[in-house]
């Protein structure tokens, strides 16, 4: 459809309306103004009044600007050439590379048939003990990192991206600080992971509407790679910005807000993105790791709250560490029985002792007397925090498990550790020599 419309009826925020006929819901248009051309998509039809959200924003759009409908919905090019490239939220190159326009695929496609899903079964190794040992990441899992602004969540994402054993990394940045974007690019380039990565980045200064497109465009590409048998890891940062962009558009569209100004379909919209995480039988998989910043460290804020109901657990990043309490990987049971026979017991045992350490700390701060047992726990807690919880620790799962036994043995006797006798015989440092 190449007819050009030159009369824009209304401009309100990022939404414009034009009078047009025969256009289809969801299709794209190009709005050309003297500041340049921008894509826009149709979000509402009412008789011949067509509402469009302009990706570059409504600012500077004139009532006399040209609107040309393209006759297809938002698409992205899917080719091998995506590797190592950086795009913005509407799919335009952000780097010096050429515009890609081959093999265009629709974004925001249909949901996977639940009858075709399979139970996930492969662990993703990250080299971070708090993840590998205590809350294992599983292929096809959808997992957010709950965090307060200021925490090193992007550093954590970058580390997981570089170390995770996956074929392809898709980074979707929403409202990303420009520095953070540069940080991601530098990290991945230095580590050599950039040649298997593709970036879709919306920075904080870019138009809001493009922020809304980032998850869909990233996941559409990821899904295609997965269908071709690749293991894809999608990193989304920060989903709270995505939700805020939704809020902005909803309010411009006069939608009735439901909770703290967020639209009523917040849950469904977040779920539609997160549920793209999948393990295709006989093909690849999509794993989603997303950052959700919690305004005011409030987990009951609508964004983290709705996210928690959708995702399969969460990593809770606090004071630069992944907190063992509050963090949860709902899928870890699927994989941690096959890693090593001591994995589950060590995981439970160490957390129970750490919980006791917290109680002792509380007692100590209230001035109660410390027993011998309390003193042992205090030593244990400190070692645990420094050697296991610090994000700088970078060791494979097996070494982390051995380290766990080291820590236990330097603080407790085997009976005190509460570990099963059979495991103590096998793994307690120095135990085998002692018995011989």
């Amino acid at each position, binding site marked *: 459809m190449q007819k050009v419309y030159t009369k824009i009826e209304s401009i309100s925020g990022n939404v414009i309306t034009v009078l047009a006929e025969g256009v289809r819901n*969801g299709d794209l248009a190009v709005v050309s103004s003297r500041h340049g051309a921008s894509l826009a998509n149709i979000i509402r039809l009412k008789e011949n009044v067509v509402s469009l959200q302009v990706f570059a924003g409504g600012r500077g759009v004139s009532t006399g600007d040209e609107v040309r409908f393209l006759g297809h919905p938002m698409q992205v090019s899917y080719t091998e050439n995506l590797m190592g490239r950086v795009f913005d939220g509407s799919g335009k190159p952000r780097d010096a590379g050429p515009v890609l326009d081959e093999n265009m695929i629709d974004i925001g496609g249909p949901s996977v048939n*639940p009858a075709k*899903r399979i139970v996930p079964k492969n662990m993703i190794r990250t080299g971070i003990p708090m993840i590998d040992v205590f809350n294992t990441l599983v292929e096809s899992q959808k997992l957010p990192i709950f965090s307060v602004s200021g925490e090193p969540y992007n550093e954590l994402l970058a580390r997981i991206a570089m170390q995770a054993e996956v074929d392809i990394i898709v980074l979707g940045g929403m409202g990303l600080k420009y520095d953070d974007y540069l940080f991601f690019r530098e990290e991945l380039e230095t580590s050599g992971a950039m040649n298997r990565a593709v970036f879709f980045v919306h920075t904080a200064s870019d138009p809001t509407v493009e922020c809304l497109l980032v998850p869909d465009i990233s996941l559409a590409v990821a899904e295609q790679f997965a269908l071709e048998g690749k293991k894809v890891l999608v990193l989304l940062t920060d989903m709270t910005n995505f939700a805020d962009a939704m809020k902005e558009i909803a309010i411009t569209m006069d939608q009735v807000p*439901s909770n703290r100004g967020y639209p009523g379909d917040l849950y469904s919209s977040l779920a539609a993105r997160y549920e793209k995480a999948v393990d295709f039988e006989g093909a690849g998989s999509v794993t989603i790791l997303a950052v959700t910043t919690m305004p005011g460290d409030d987990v009951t804020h609508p964004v983290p709250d709705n996210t928690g109901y959708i995702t399969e657990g969460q990593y809770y990043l606090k004071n630069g560490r992944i907190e063992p309490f509050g963090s949860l990987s709902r899928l870890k049971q699927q994989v941690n029985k096959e890693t090593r026979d001591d994995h589950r017991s060590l995981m439970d045992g160490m957390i129970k002792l750490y919980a006791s350490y917290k109680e002792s700390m509380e007692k100590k701060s209230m001035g109660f007397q410390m027993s011998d047992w309390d003193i042992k726990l205090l030593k244990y807690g400190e070692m645990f925090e420094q050697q296991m919880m610090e994000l700088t620790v970078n060791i494979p799962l097996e070494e982390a498990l051995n380290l766990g036994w080291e820590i236990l043995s330097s603080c407790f006797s085997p009976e005190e550790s509460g570990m099963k006798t059979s495991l103590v015989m096998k793994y307690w440092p120095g135990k085998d020599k002692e018995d011989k």
Partner: protein
Amino acid sequence: MNTGKVIGINGNMATVEFTDNISLNEVAYIILGDSRLKAEVIRVNGKEASLQVFEMTGGIKVGDQVEFTGELLSVELGPGLLGQVYDGLQNPLPQLAEKCGFFLQRGVYMNAIPDSSWEFTPSVKKGDIVRPGYSVGTVPEGIFSHRIMVPFGFSDGEYSVKKIAAAGSYTAREEIAVVTDSSGNDHSLSMVFTWPIKRAVTRYEERLKPVEPMITKIRIIDTFLPVARGGTFCIPGPFGAGKTVIQQTTSRNADVDIVIIAACGERAGEVVETLIEFPELTDPRTGKSLMERTIIICNTSSMPVAAREASVYTAVTIAEYYRQMGLNVLLLADSTSRWAQAMREMSGRLEEIPGEEAFPAYLESVIANFYERAGLVRLFDGNTGSVTIGGTVSPAGGNFEEPVTQATLKVVGAFHGLSRERSDARKYPAIHPLESWSKYTGIIDSKKTTFARDLLFRGEEVNQMMKVVGEEGTSLDDYIVYQKSEFLDSVYLQQDSFDPVDGSAPIERQKYTFDLVFTILHGSFKLSTKQETRNYFNQLRQRFLDLNSAEWNSDSFKSIEESLRGKIDEKLKANE
């Protein structure tokens, strides 16, 4: 055909101009090239109708053709429903996957009931008088005798049987009987008929008060917070508190004939677990696979929202259908909050004046209507059948003071509230024993359970006090109360749902072990120090936990019991 055309589209709502008569909740199809998108009329205003579209609306344009069917949104009822996995509109998902592959393609609708053959045995003869809901014969479906009934939708009155098929094999949609109404018109009957999902089936003699308990084999529920067959219950709780695990164990263990799981707007992964586990598990009552008594209606969170709204009605209609055969049916809806949110989304698009948290003002009456479809009924033939409804609620922020939880609490008979504190402390099931309630009668003498609850309450008070004054400042008597309440909590209220024995506690075992617990709760003990008290109760607890995981009435059960009773007698004062 009654047609119209699209004049507006906003999200999943289409505005359609029409000319002939249409009715509210009528099904229409939007014609989009080769595909037909299902929609439902939800508001009529002058010559314009608002339709909620059950599919994604991308690609629809103003002027597109709409066909009205004249039929209300309905489900197909007949033999072959058991063991199926449907979406919210009763599309069989495995068959859809065979046809369309990995993704759910929009506009593809399939027969809900397969055209398979069934061994029909007539139960009426020519000249007999029947009414809507009366049985004309049966076919065996799995372990059940599936009644073939006069369609519920026939108008009231008597019909005489003009023709009835002889015993033999017929396909589901073949004619098996002809009945004549009072004005002499003939009606042909097959094994399959339809019923509009938003209307309750009322083809029964009377509704009865639910009294008989529905055993779930979860101790805290059966003993303290019982659910009756034909009753209703709700499980609100924050994320990660174990709502879905409770629903899954209930769906496995509940003492009913048929279980219908409505996975409404929740994670697809959880449905997959059920899909893969159930065919492997055996039903202890029948020895057959659990899947043979289960129907799954699954409209997961990323599937179209409007169909999510329909999915709970689809589920309850199928439940009522099996109830009409004198069976006990349990409907588990996970989660009703997602269903309420679907209503909220539609209400927003209709630009209705919002109520609290933008939920529509009619939220309460809709929730009440849904739960009221549960019930124990006496059928025309004198038998009884029941539909029990249990819904989870996912309150925002885990705060029960929100509209969906509150509206639900007004209409249900039992409230199993999950608490974040209990789940953080790994106390499962995380049902809060003091905040939750039930209006039904359980399996254990209520005097004893009231005593136990009071003790829990006092124990909690002592615990709060101890946090301030320390153990030192607490009297020994109070300390014993506290230890008793902790004991009750850890050996009886908590239950390891992953343990093969402890995971399901049959009724006689519950009665037996509760008596044992009660002896301890009610007794007074010769204990002189707190240290001694703590050690003593730790020993009791350890033995009791061992008992919980020992096979019922096995040798090891008996020897642990003996050692436990010995331990009790050691300190129990004789006159108690």
